[in-house]
């Protein structure tokens, strides 16, 4: 079946602009995660959604970052007033149910964001 889909695959924008990144999880996956991957580094947790529960936003680096998810479908990550340090690959993952280590996270190919 289809995997996690992210769009756009690449985004170049000027400093100060807002950007919106989209993630389509695997159908039936109730848990959805956003990560940031800076060049040559591992992944940083940003935010987690589980069904209709309140999301865990503890990883968002500043109030310029926000994310939404409607039910168990598409999620959008929004970065307002982008800064050069926001340049990174933003990865989305989904899983059947969080809180169980038997449910691995499945990753999309990411959005490569470059801030000029």
């Amino acid at each position, binding site marked *: 079946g289809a995997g*996690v889909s992210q769009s756009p695959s690449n985004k170049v924008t000027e400093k100060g602009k807002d950007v919106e990144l989209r993630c389509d999880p695997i159908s039936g996956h109730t*848990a959805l*995660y956003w990560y940031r991957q800076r060049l*040559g*580094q*591992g*992944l*940083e*947790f940003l935010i*987690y959604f*589980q069904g209709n529960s309140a999301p*865990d936003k503890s990883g968002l680096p500043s109030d310029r970052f926000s994310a939404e998810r409607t039910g168990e479908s598409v999620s959008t990550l929004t970065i307002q007033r982008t800064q050069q340090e926001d340049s990174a690959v933003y*990865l989305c*993952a989904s*899983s059947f149910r*969080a*809180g*169980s*280590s*038997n449910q*691995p*996270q*499945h*990753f*999309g*190919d*990411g959005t*490569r964001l470059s801030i000029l």
Partner: protein
Amino acid sequence: AQSVTQLDSHVSVSEGTPVLLRCNYSSSYSPSLFWYVQHPNKGLQLLLKYTSAATLVKGINGFEAEFKKSETSFHLTKPSAHMSDAAEYFCVVSGSNDYKLSFGAGTTVTVRA
């Protein structure tokens, strides 16, 4: 809190020779541990996972890893490297809520013909 240290930022091997990627973890409870692989411009793919069952875990593409609690290690091995194994590898430990993963900085593997 938990953390992961990947001891090698870069590993270079010849095709057909063994691969060893080293990972040490720190956790205040019994962790779940994973290895993921990332090919260029792609997302992460799960290679294998340890979840307190057998300490020797077999994964896809001939990889395996051994959980050693006394050494707090979870090293990844493959007996014979293939050119297609050239990629970035991440050792990952789960958090107290299971969903929050902590990633190592990654090990880049290059395979020489």
